């Protein structure tokens, strides 16, 4: 792995059905996610997906790439900068920015497939120290 390398993206589509499924899964029925009228009243223009849906895909991408190293020595920070709306076709992104003797630093996030507009942006650090098989 070297600076400039990209992680394998995960593509997903936001649908109201997926948002409702996630609301059920998480117990987060905040009406900005599930009530079109309320979301409009809040000035959001319609329902928006839970930011955690994007976070789940980012974590899945990092977990797929780094496995146990992701689970046992990583840190990431993400900002939800623009709403994920129903019918958006999205993908995760991850790019290696720096590698040191003990860690990998990446930019991560979620962007629209259509035009690359960033909706979630962040950074991740993966420790690359030795891991024994018994943890």
């Amino acid at each position, binding site marked *: 792995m070297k600076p400039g390398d990209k992680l394998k993206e995960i593509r997903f589509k936001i649908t109201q059905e997926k948002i409702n499924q996630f609301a059920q899964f998480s117990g987060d029925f*905040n*009406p900005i996610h599930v009530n079109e009228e309320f979301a409009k009243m*809040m000035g959001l223009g319609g329902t928006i997906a839970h930011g955690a849906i994007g976070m*789940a895909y980012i974590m*899945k991408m990092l977990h797929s790439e780094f496995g146990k190293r992701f689970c046992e020595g990583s840190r*990431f920070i993400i*900002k939800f900068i623009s709403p994920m709306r129903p019918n958006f076709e999205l993908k995760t992104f991850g790019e290696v920015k720096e590698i040191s003797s003990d860690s990998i630093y990446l930019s991560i996030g979620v962007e629209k497939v259509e035009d690359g507009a960033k909706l979630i942006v962040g950074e991740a650090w993966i420790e690359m120290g030795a891991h024994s098989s018994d943890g």
Partner: protein
Amino acid sequence: MAEKKTMKFSELKEGEILSAVSYEIADEKIEEYKRIFGNSSEGLPPFVSCLYAMKCLLEKYSIQPGTIHAFQEVELKKEIPLGERFFRSYGVVKEKFNKRGKNYAVFEITTEDSRGIIVHKMKLGFVIPE
């Protein structure tokens, strides 16, 4: 159990404790995760554990409609072994501030496994309507 309060910016206090909550993550919840996000790994996906950690916040407060998840920081410290399902999470109101007319509250939540070993720490930032 104390009655839940609605989370209000004006009533949150920096340093306020979110009492420890113990819980079991049900296998059904992991299956539900897999149905939504696809089957990514054996055992417990880290995201599911992070989501459950919110319990210590949600046992105390109900989220005010219109609250927006603004940012999140996660530090994963220990892989959760296959079969591990019992956890304990606790937290604190780390800070609250107003930026560009918006009320932000940041919560720090720590999760331990059944042996008391920290598996992850998180900071969650919310924009709260009032």
